[in-house]
Structure formats: structure tokens, C-alpha cells
């Protein structure tokens, strides 16, 4: 928090004193004191609605004599706390100096039991089927604060079970507890009012406005914020129970925003990606398109074999052939990828430096597409700034197709290394590729990969560890969620092996931690940084040296371009 | 020697060996049956032979009795893979089962199986008759232990080795007792060592008609009989004396490393030992082929009498084999030190005392 300490006010939660900023609501204040106040409708990044009533607590303020404005003191000389006779909702009540909150009293307990009972009256209790089971607030609070048995003997309401409210979102009306988070999300975050309440009483339900569907690229966030299983994702629906899934912190590679994510996997298979809260990058949101990126892990055209002249070989042979090619090259052109991690870029730079060729041309191929000014930026490379920081490239200019073609045609470049980039679209056609020593490193096959003399399979972001530097010059790390294809070395390991074959200085091993020891020693902006030391929310890096670079990003959620 | 005589002798030998082998083979099945009876089970009752088993009543009955179990077990042992562990002493490893199997077969040559009366003169139905019969038996039976010792030593691993050592020490300990417990019997029979003469001495009734006991040595010398029986159990390594095998503490003892047919040889060898031991005990203490209260001369002359006498002996032998099994499924195994203590500290002094006592009795009651 940016507030200085003297502005903080004291709040007492169950007798525990915490210092909070003025205006903090009671749920957050209690959270700081380590006390959980159950809530459904309240969401940290949405407006307060106060309609679920789950967060009822007892509240008291220091007594002040109305007439004299003097504190009322008790026999011990302490200020008397005046407790409100009725409970208050914690989400809509902001902290005031000396505020007292009681969350464990009989009244609060009975309130919560009552609310839970009402919420469960018409709930279908189909947890065995429900995708939310395991991460459902209704389940959690029912066990923690519910009464444990039901007094309801009448028939429950029956409502539609499978309403498609958007191409990616299914609504189960029966499960809905009408917290309204999704309605507020549409209104406040995507600013397109799609959802609203309809009907009355116990038949009240969520519905789309006529003629509208929830088809925004951020629609799946409503699934995340739905505290129960009313809104589910068509993609993840009935795929796997959440308690089987392993959570791995990762970074979205969709654009240079660097959305923080969690990858959910089981036994090497990724089932879904959800956003990870980072209040300086993506709050708690991410795009639907970013969630689908895991599908590229297991696709037909995934490259899984080291090949030399089309014949599958083992990794050591590929390393040897690669090194041989580099040693013989007269001129090298490298089409580096902005999707590579900082570590790989650093190692690639070392590799190019180790090659004896006279002419060396290194470019990160830019991918510029239209952004949405929210969480998808114009620069679709997640690590453009990493390439600059590591010194792989000295600028982010595009590869001039004509120049490259001319260099190749003139013969000054006889070796082209492409990392995850399809070179046919950069002016080199198949006749030229056949003349060249063409090395393709990539996660997937592409048009040009079939002409490659040496082909090196790479791993996707989910199969390796590393770090990216996003548009804010924020260094963020990601962990390995699933193992890569059998027999494929990690990208860093391959590069380290290659460096070893070129007799260059190599890190102790190919782990990110080892590579970072070298990076922090050689790159001034990264001085003193270790891989383990990169915090979960990322580490801002000094990017002032590259202020003159023509970055293409527009405004997004927590980023404003310098030239704007 | 006439070749026809030789042939006849050979034939007799083969017949005897086949019969004894069958008995010992079926003792294996018998053991399983007896154990199952004791334990309230049924025992082998499934094995059947295609043609024989489908004979209406008899086939079913034979199957239920487990008669076909023996060929099945034999075939199994024959067709199993013959393991030859790498670490064993190959020569002795192969030799041991044969050695353990041979002594009972050799003893067969001097055992009298019955009596053959011709013209009022009775002679033994036996392969040969020698005047050192019992000494020969003892000499040869003491060789049986080499099979165990060699098996244990050749296997070149711990448990068989311990089994071999136990076999040798147990054999030395109880060999003495066997000799001493038999001495009074042969003193009683007037100095002959011939087994036929021992049986002849047991015809009739002990202490006159009124007392009502057959003139068997088990009645006249009960302590000798008991000592010999216990020592016999120990010599044949049967429970409660099966220290060399002792599967609870030595896995399989001396034959731990054996499998397939060699194991089968050990197995049948043990039962052959048992059968011969039973026959010996019947001959020496149970009156051989004598029928209680009937003089031996009651057997008719010729082949009929011979066959009858052999059958009577066989009945007694089979009962004793059953007794072996009965004991096995009743008594738990001794500890090794208990076996040694029993042999040296109890049986040996008892046997000496028994011998001295009978010597004194016979010295002062010459007409006994």
C-alpha cells in the first residue's frame, strides 16, 4: 500500500489490532488480521453489491458522547465500545478509526447459518456432477459455517440446467445464488451489459438481455468469479475434477502484457488455465484466447524429433551437427523469437558470439497485431524487452525481407537459424533455403521447417521454466507445469549442450537458476537478481536504456505507453 | 553261477524294488491324506487319469482316494525345469540325491519279507540271507546320511550347509542309541545277528498261555523298542526330528537348492527310508510276519504261506508308516539343542542301562 504509516488507522478484529488504510472495507481488514469473513457477492476488483448477506458481522465503534464529543470511558478509563444492536455486512462497511469487529459471536454464527440455509434451500446439491466441486464457496462455507443438516422438506425449485449464455459459458440456473458478480463484471470490466436478473423471488435467475450473448473475449472470467458452479466453461466442463489438478504458476504468452496465470494439469496433461491475481499487471482477469493456448501442447504438427536432413537422430548427434554447422558458417542470420525466455535469449546470444562467422545478423521477429487496450497488447511477443535486456538484439526493428534475401543471394550469409519463426514469410523461398544451411528450432512444424537441414524440437512455455520481461519491464517467471515430449531436451539444456560443443563458457547446468547466475553477472539491469529471488508478482527492471526503442504497445490495464 | 539263477535273482530284486518304491511313493500320497484327515481336510482327491478315471464307480473312487496323485506328482517332478544353480559343486550336487536314495535299496537285499515252508523246514523269503544281517543293515543305513551332508555342502549356501551339519551330528548322536537298543534283542535271540532268526524267536505267546501277550519283543523289551523307535525317527529325519530339513528355520535345509527330479529323489528317498525303517521295526519288535497267538508253524506250506506271511509283514509295516505320519502331524519339531540333549543325555544312558539290565536278567534267568 502506498499510504504512509501515519495515515493508517487501527481496526480491531476479534480483539486483534491491525493497521489499515482508511476506506478499506471490513472483509479486507479482517483478512489482514488473519480472520476470514465468508462472502459471495463481494469481489476485490468489482464494486460492492452487498446482496448475499454472508459477510454479516458485529461491529462496534468507540463510544463518543454526542453532546460533548468526548469519549465515553469505563471504570478502567478505557473507551467504551458501542456495539451495534444488529449485524452489518462487512463488504459494504469501511474501516473507521478504532473500529471493532466481532466474527465469532453467537449472533454472527446464527446469521451465517441462516444465510447458508436460505442459499441451500433451492440449491440442487449436484456436487458430484458440478465442475465447481472442490473450489466451490458454497461447499466450503456449508461445511465451515452451515448447520450441517437440512430442515427443508418441500420440493426444490427446478430451473433450466444447460443454458448457453455465450459460446464459451454455460449457465446452470439451479446452482446460481444470485450474487451478481457476473452482472457487475460485465458492467464494470468488459463494459458491455450482457447479464441481468429476471423473474422474482425464488424463481429469480440470471439471464442475458434479449439479443445479446456473452461472447466477449473476457467472458470466461465470469466462470472464475462465480462462487458456485452456476457458470461453467464449455472447454473445461466435465473434463476433470479440480482436486486432481496440480497448480503451476505461469505467464501467458499471448502478448507482451504478461498476464499471470495458473496452469492446471494432471499427470502431464493440461486441463485449463486460469488467471493468477497480480494487481499491477492483470488484476484477476485474463483473456479467453489466452486460456486456450494450452491446446498447442498436444497437436498434430508438434515437433518432437531431432532430425538431420530429415532423418531422426538423438539429441547428441543434433548438437554435434549444429555445432559443426556453426563452426563452418561464413555468415549467420538468426531469426530469434520473442517467445523465447530471457534465459534462452541469453544463451542464444552467447552461442552466436561463440560462432566464428564473419557476418552475423540477429533479429527478433516482431509480431504486431491489433490489441484490445485491456490485457492483450499490440506486441504479441511476450518477451521483446527480454531480447533487448539480454543484448541478443540491439533494436527491435523488423527483419527486412529484402535485405535478408539480398544477403543470402550475395552469399555473405550461408547459414540461417530460425527460432520458432517461419522464414518463408520473410522473403526466403524454398530455392534459397535449399542452398543455405538452414537450422529450424521450433515447437511446431511450419512451412519452412521441411527444408531444414537440422531440426531441433523446442518446448512450449508449459514444459519448461524461465522468465519473461513484459511491456512494463517487469521480470516475471514461470514454472514447468508438464513434462515435454519424450527425448526432447529443454531449450536451455540444448543451448547449454551446444555451447559446450562450441567450447564456450557454460553455466553449471541448464536450470534457470544456474543460467541466472551468469545473467546477473553479465547484464547490468539484472545485477543481483537470482531466479529464486524473482517474486511471484514480478520484479520491475530498469528499462530506461531502451526508452528510444519504437515500442508498439498501446494503453492497457496497468500500462500507459511513454509516448502517449 | 548259472545265468538262469542270476536272472531269477535279478527279477526278484526288480520286483522287490518296484514294490518298495511303490509303497514309498504312495507313502507320499498317504502322508498328504493323513495330514488332511488330522486337519479336517480331504486331501488330494482331484487328480485323474483320462481312461482309468472314467471307469464308472472305481474310477471315481480311485480319484477320490488320490490314487492318481502319485503319477501326477512324479510326472510333474520329471517334467519340471531342472535348475542347476551356478554356485554349487556340480558333481556332489548331482551325486547327493542318488546317495541318499541308495541305502534303503541296498538294505532291501537282506530284509526277510516272509517265510517259506517246505517239507517242514522254513526259510526266509529274502533276496539274500546273511548271518550279519542286522549289522549290514546298520552299516548301510548309516551311509544314507552322506546324501544329506553332501547335498548341504555341495549347495554352497548357508541354509543347506547348516542342514548338512545338523544331519551329520544328529546321525552320529543317534547311531549309538540304535546299536545299543538293538543289542538286548540279539542277546535274547541267542547271539545270532540274522533277522530271520529274530522273527522266528517271536512266534508264540509270552509267559505262557494265561498271560496273553504275543511273544513279540515290543512286549518283552518295551524300553528297547521305545528307544529304537525314537532313534529310528531321528535316523530317518522324520518329524519331530527333521532338523536337517527344518523348513521353519532353514528354509528347506539340505535340499533348499534342489528342485525338480532331484528334489523328488530326496523326497521319495525319505519315504523309502521310512518304509525300510518301518519294516525293520516290524521285523525286530512286532514279530515280523507272526500273527498274535499263533505259532509261526501255522503258516501253510508253499507259496500260499509265503504270500500270507509277506502280507502280514506288509500290514504291520504300513501301520508303522501310518504311525510315522500320525506322529508327524501330532508333535511339533524339537529344537536342535533338545535333539542333541535327548540323544546324548537321555537316550544313550537309558540304552546303556537297558542293556545292562537285560544282560543281568538273562544271566540269572538262562531259561528265558
Amino acid at each position: 500500500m502506498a499510504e504512509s504509516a501515519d495515515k493508517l488507522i487501527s481496526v480491531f478484529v476479534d480483539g486483534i489490532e491491525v493497521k489499515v488504510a482508511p476506506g478499506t472495507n471490513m472483509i479486507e481488514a479482517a483478512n489482514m488480521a488473519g480472520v476470514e469473513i465468508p462472502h459471495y457477492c463481494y469481489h476485490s476488483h468489482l464494486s460492492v453489491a452487498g446482496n448475499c448477506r454472508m459477510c454479516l458481522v458485529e461491529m462496534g465503534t468507540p463510544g463518543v458522547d454526542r453532546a460533548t464529543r468526548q469519549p465515553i470511558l469505563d471504570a478502567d478509563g478505557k473507551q467504551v465500545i458501542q456495539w451495534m444492536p444488529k449485524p452489518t455486512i462487512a463488504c459494504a462497511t469501511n474501516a473507521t478509526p478504532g473500529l471493532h469487529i466481532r466474527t465469532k459471536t453467537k449472533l454472527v454464527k446464527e446469521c451465517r447459518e441462516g444465510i447458508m440455509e436460505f442459499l441451500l434451500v433451492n440449491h440442487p446439491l449436484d456436487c458430484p456432477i458440478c465442475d465447481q466441486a472442490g473450489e466451490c464457496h458454497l461447499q466450503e462455507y456449508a461445511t465451515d459455517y452451515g448447520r450441517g443438516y437440512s430442515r427443508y422438506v418441500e420440493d426444490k425449485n427446478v430451473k433450466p440446467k444447460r443454458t448457453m449464455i455465450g459460446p464459451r459459458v454455460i449457465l446452470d440456473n439451479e446452482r446460481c445464488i444470485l450474487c451478481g458478480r457476473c452482472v457487475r463484471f460485465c458492467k464494470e470490466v468488459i463494459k458491455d451489459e450482457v447479464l441481468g436478473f429476471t423473474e422474482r423471488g425464488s424463481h429469480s435467475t440470471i439471464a442475458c438481455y434479449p439479443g445479446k450473448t456473452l461472447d466477449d473475449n473476457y467472458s470466461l472470467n465470469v466462470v472464475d468469479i462465480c462462487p458456485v458452479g452456476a457458470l461453467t466453461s464449455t472447454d473445461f466442463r466435465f473434463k476433470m475434477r479440480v482436486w486432481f489438478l496440480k497448480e503451476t504458476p505461469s505467464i501467458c504468452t499471448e502478448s507482451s502484457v504478461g498476464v499471470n496465470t495458473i496452469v492446471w494439469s494432471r499427470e502431464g496433461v493440461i486441463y485449463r488455465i486460469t488467471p493468477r491475481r497480480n494487481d499491477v499487471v492483470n488484476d484477476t482477469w485474463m483473456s479467453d484466447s489466452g486460456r486456450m493456448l494450452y491446446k498447442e501442447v498436444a497437436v498434430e504438427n508438434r515437433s518432437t524429433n531431432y532430425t538431420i536432413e530429415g532423418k531422426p537422430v538423438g539429441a547428441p548427434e543434433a548438437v554435434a551437427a549444429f555445432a559443426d554447422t556453426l563452426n563452418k558458417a561464413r555468415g549467420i542470420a538468426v531469426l530469434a523469437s520473442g517467445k523465447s525466455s530471457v534465459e534462452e535469449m541469453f544463451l542464444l546470444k552467447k552461442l552466436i558470439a561463440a560462432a566464428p562467422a564473419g557476418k552475423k545478423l540477429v533479429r527478433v521477429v516482431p509480431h504486431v497485431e491489433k490489441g484490445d487496450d485491456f490485457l492483450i497488447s499490440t506486441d504479441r511477443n511476450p518477451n521483446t524487452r527480454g531480447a533487448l535486456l539480454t543484448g541478443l538484439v540491439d533494436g527491435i526493428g523488423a527483419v527486412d525481407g529484402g535485405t535478408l534475401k539480398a544477403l543470402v543471394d550475395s552469399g555473405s550469409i550461408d547459414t540461417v537459424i530460425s527460432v520458432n519463426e517461419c522464414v518463408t514469410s520473410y522473403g526466403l523461398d524454398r530455392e534459397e533455403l535449399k542452398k543455405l544451411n538452414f537450422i529450424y528450432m521450433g515447437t511446431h512444424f511450419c512451412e519452412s521447417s521441411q527444408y531444414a537441414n537440422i531440426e531441433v524440437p523446442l518446448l512450449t512455455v508449459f514444459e519448461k521454466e524461465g522468465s519473461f520481461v513484459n511491456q512494463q519491464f517487469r521480470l516475471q517467471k514461470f514454472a514447468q507445469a508438464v513434462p515435454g515430449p519424450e527425448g526432447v531436451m529443454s531449450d536451455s539444456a540444448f543451448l547449454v549442450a551446444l555451447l559446450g560443443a562450441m567450447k564456450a563458457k557454460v553455466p553449471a547446468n541448464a536450470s534457470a537458476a544456474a543460467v541466472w547466475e551468469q545473467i546477473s553477472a553479465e547484464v547490468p539491469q539484472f545485477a543481483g537478481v537470482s531466479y529464486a529471488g524473482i517474486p511471484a508478482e514480478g520484479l520491475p527492471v530498469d528499462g530506461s536504456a531502451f526508452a528510444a526503442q519504437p515500442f508498439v504497445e498501446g494503453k492497457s490495464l496497468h500500462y500507459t505507453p511513454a509516448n502517449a | 553261477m548259472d545265468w538262469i539263477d542270476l536272472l531269477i535273482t535279478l527279477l526278484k530284486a526288480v520286483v522287490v524294488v518296484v514294490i518298495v518304491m511303490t509303497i514309498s511313493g504312495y507313502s507320499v500320497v498317504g502322508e498328504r491324506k493323513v495330514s488332511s484327515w488330522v486337519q479336517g481336510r480331504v486331501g488330494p482327491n482331484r487328480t485323474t487319469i483320462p481312461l482309468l478315471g472314467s471307469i464308472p464307480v472305481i474310477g471315481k473312487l480311485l480319484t477320490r482316494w488320490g490314487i492318481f496323485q502319485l503319477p501326477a506328482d512324479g510326472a510333474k517332478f520329471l517334467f519340471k525345469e531342472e535348475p542347476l544353480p551356478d554356485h554349487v559343486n556340480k558333481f556332489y550336487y548331482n551325486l547327493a540325491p542318488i546317495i541318499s536314495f541308495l541305502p534303503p535299496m541296498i538294505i532291501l537285499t537282506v530284509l526277510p519279507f516272509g517265510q517259506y515252508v517246505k517239507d517242514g523246514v522254513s526259510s526266509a523269503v529274502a533276496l539274500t540271507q546273511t548271518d550279519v544281517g542286522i549289522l549290514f543293515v546298520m552299516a548301510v543305513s548309516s551311509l544314507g546320511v552322506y546324501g544329506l551332508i553332501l547335498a548341504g555342502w555341495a549347495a554352497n549356501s548357508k541354509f543347506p550347509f547348516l542342514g548338512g551339519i545338523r544331519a551329520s551330528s544328529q546321525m552320529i548322536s543317534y547311531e549309538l542309541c540304535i546299536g545299543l537298543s538293538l543289542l538286548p534283542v540279539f542277546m535274547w535271540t541267542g547271539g545270532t545277528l540274522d533277522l530271520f532268526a529274530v522273527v522266528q524267536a517271536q512266534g508264540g505267546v509270552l509267559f505262557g498261555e494265561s498271560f496273553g501277550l504275543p511273544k513279540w519283543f515290543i512286549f518283552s523289551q518295551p524300553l528297547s523298542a521305545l528307544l529304537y523307535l525314537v532313534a529310528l525317527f531321528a535316523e530317518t529325519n522324520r518329524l519331530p526330528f527333521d532338523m536337517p530339513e527344518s523348513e521353519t528355520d532353514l528354509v528347506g535345509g539340505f535340499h533348499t537348492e534342489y528342485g525338480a527330479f532331484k528334489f523328488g529323489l530326496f523326497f521319495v528317498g525319505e519315504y523309502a527310508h521310512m518304509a525300510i525303517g518301518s519294516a525293520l521295526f516290524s521285523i525286530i519288535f512286532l514279530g515280523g510276519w507272526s500273527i498274535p497267538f499263533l505259532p509261526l508253524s501255522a503258516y501253510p506250506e508253499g507259496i500260499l504261506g509265503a504270500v500270507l506271511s509277506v502280507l502280514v509283514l506288509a500290514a504291520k509295516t504300513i501301520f508303522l508308516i501310518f504311525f510315522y505320519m500320525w506322529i508327524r502331524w501330532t508333535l511339533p519339531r524339537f529344537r536342535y539343542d533338545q535333539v542333541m540333549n535327548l540323544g546324548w543325555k537321555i537316550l544313550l544312558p537309558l540304552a546303556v542301562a537297558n542293556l545292562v539290565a537285560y544282560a543281568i536278567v538273562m544271566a540269572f534267568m538262562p531259561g528265558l
Partner: protein
Amino acid sequence: MAIKVLDRKPLSLAERTYLPQIISGLGITLRNMLKPPVTLQYPEEKPVIPKGYRGVPTLVKDPNGREKCVSCQLCEFVCPPKAIRITPGEIADPENPHVEKAPKDFELNMLRCIYCGLCEEVCPEEAIVLQDLYSLNSEAREEIVLHKDKLYELGGTLPDKHFKWDKKKKAAEDAASGDSH
């Protein structure tokens, strides 16, 4: 606790010879030999399966012939030897909109199963039941890994009176036909 030392009763001469004990032991075994055997002739005679016997876990259908399993995967979660593997699937049945989920495949590896019954215990739909099938064998390992079809074949129908989906369907039809408010 005070330790009380008990002297062992001295053995009489007869007892010290052990012979009476041995003879009485022989008597006991002899009496046992004369008793009829208690053996069950298994393939011909079948044992009486006690109530609550935990045999092979099977999947059951309700009296309407609908599969009860909704592939909640709790059994997969609770299974100690990890013998169960469920591939969940969706049923798009317009007739019964409330029956949404069923296993696409239900793999039960009987080579691993330890018959603990936790799956039956945990099943919220009473869909997996350890029935009295005790002899499951085959010549191939793959056949011992039971799949959905086989499990339903073994399980049959559980005749309970709990027509959960029927109730839902009826209520839905009522709600659709007569507007209640």
C-alpha cells in the same frame, strides 16, 4: 503394577517323560482323523456369501435402466491402490436434462483393486457396489482391467426406490406446463 512371580508347578515323573502327553496328543489327532472333513469342494460347492461381502466392485443402473454413475471421480480420488480411472463425459439427453454427466469410460483395474470398499463408501450416487462376485479370472491381464460395459454387465440393476432423475424430470415438466406464480 506389582510383579507377582509364580513358580512353575514341578512336573511329575510321568510328565517329565513326556510320554503321557505324546500319547494324549496322538489321541487328539486320532479323534480328528475320525471326524468328517470340513472342506468345501469349491468348484462344485459354492460358499455361502455373507451379507455385506466385499466382492468385485461393479457399476449399477437404476430401475429405469439409467446409469447411476455421474463420474464425480470421488472413487478415483479415494481409491487407495489407484485402481480406478474415469474419463468423464457429458450426455446430451434432451429427455432428461438433469442427467448431464456420465463416465465416458470407467476403468477398474482389478489387478490393483484391494476390495477395500472405500469406493462404495464414498459414492454419492450409490453407483458403485461391491457385490458378491468373488472369483474374477482370465487368461489375459487386459481382461482383468474392467471397463464400463463389463462393469455394468456385472453390476446389473440396483433395485432401490430412489428415482432421483424421475423426480427432477417431473418437477421440470410441472414447472414448464403450469406457471406456478
